[in-house]
């Protein structure tokens, strides 16, 4: 399937390799500060709260809620043209940070703020697994 996959793909770097590796292993991981406990996203060199660089890659629950959502009618990427209208959601994970994703197993008409969601691991290529979300029913 990777031959046909034309949408933008991440190129994992030293900083975020544990994030992408985690997704391939069916784990949502984010950095968690060992000094103050802050969890942050996207991956960064140190803690945005106390500036400690002593952190771990913590396994998260994979659950959260939709902070907000949008539906794209405009084609900004040719590779998304056939998906229009497609949704993008901001998921606030239960551990705090907000991340961008797409809602699956849900009609665009049924999207609502604060709906509870859980992660779905989408193996878009042999190398890359993207974190998508579906409603918790």
């Amino acid at each position, binding site marked *: 399937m990777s031959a046909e996959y034309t949408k933008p793909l991440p190129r994992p770097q030293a900083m975020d390799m544990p994030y992408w590796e985690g997704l391939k292993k069916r784990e949502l991981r984010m950095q968690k500060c060992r000094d103050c406990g802050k969890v942050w996203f996207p991956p960064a060199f140190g803690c945005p709260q106390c500036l400690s660089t002593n952190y771990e890659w913590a396994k998260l629950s994979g659950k959260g809620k939709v902070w907000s959502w949008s539906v794209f009618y405009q084609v*900004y990427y040719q590779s998304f043209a056939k998906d229009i209208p497609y949704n993008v959601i901001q998921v606030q994970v239960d551990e705090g940070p907000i991340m*961008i994703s797409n809602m699956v197993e849900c009609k665009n008409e049924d999207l609502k703020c604060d709906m509870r969601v859980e992660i779905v691991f989408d193996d878009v290529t042999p190398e890359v697994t993207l974190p998508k979300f579906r409603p918790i029913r």
Partner: protein
Amino acid sequence: MDARDRAKLKALSNKVAVIGVGNTPFGPYYRTRDPLRNVYSLGFTAFKNALEDCGARKDDIDGVILSRIPSYSKFCGMVGLRNLRLTNVLEPGGRMSGAAFQWAMEAIACGMASMVACVYGNIGRSVRDTYGGDWGDPYNDPFGWTSPGAFIGSMWQRYMYENNVPDGALGHQAVSQRKWAQMNPNAVMQDPLTLEEYLKARYVVKPLRLYDYCLVNDGGVCFILTSAERAKDFKKPPVYCVASSQAASHGYYYQQTDFLEDACRINADQVYGTAGVGPKDIDVVQIYDNFLPTIFFSLEGYGFCGKGEAPEFVKGDRTAPGGAMPINTSGGHCSESYMQGWALHCEAVRQVRGECGPRQVPNVKLSQYICSAPIGTSHIFSGGKI
């Protein structure tokens, strides 16, 4: 902010003035193409018009701040400016118009420059700029997440949910701004717009429709600042900067869960505190409308109305010609021209001068500029000491 900082801001009040504003045609440039047109030619024309507006000589200018014009050496070379004491190029984002103004003001106030031209050019329509696409972000682009319109739209979606706002609430402001544009011969959009037409327009990124978006057009803008002492020697009465403020909402994402409220509140405290006035004392306000929700967030954040009240506030033509709180009297970014706040500065100055013709708000004593963005800025202008 402590008492000493507040005293310093008070001392800066009315010390710097705008003496000249200039812009290119907007409407005509929207309807024509010209191979000679680029950001340098647009900046050239705006600069020339601003000099003509104030009657300053080119050699009086000893500082230049550019934005969306990438090379200061190329631009200054083409307009023949040498021996400048202040030179800078700011990133092309719209948040920089208010920041350019402030850095010019600061340099003049402390004597590092005596007359500064801030110059901007935007060739968006000719190059078919969409302000979106693959920006190479590994956490956004794989999901199709792009464009400031989507970022603001997602905040508006949440705002509607939290405040129980019906779909279409932005339409009243779209219609009011179009009424202003129809009184501005240079505005790109001249046709009337009804609420029905607004609602029938296509979604770009839901919840935002076509008329919630700013235009994409070609144009240039320049404003020239100098000290209050020197400002009296030029063609038109000086327009003093009574107060100015900047507050940031930095973060990885443009969208902020507080609808930019914290930064708005900090700015409001500084500008109104310095000027010794409140939102009710402002006669006319230009609010950065990259997308219409930004106006609503600003109105609430600056205290023009309470939290969740902006959708009611803009109803009943309150912000339209003849209304109690005129907003975006040139037509704003959605109906006049998307010059990323630069042309809004010109309009704020022209309203104080009383030179806006049919769209002139009567007896303007205080005119305000507001931009709520990752770098939020605001200024209050007046024609005399308040």
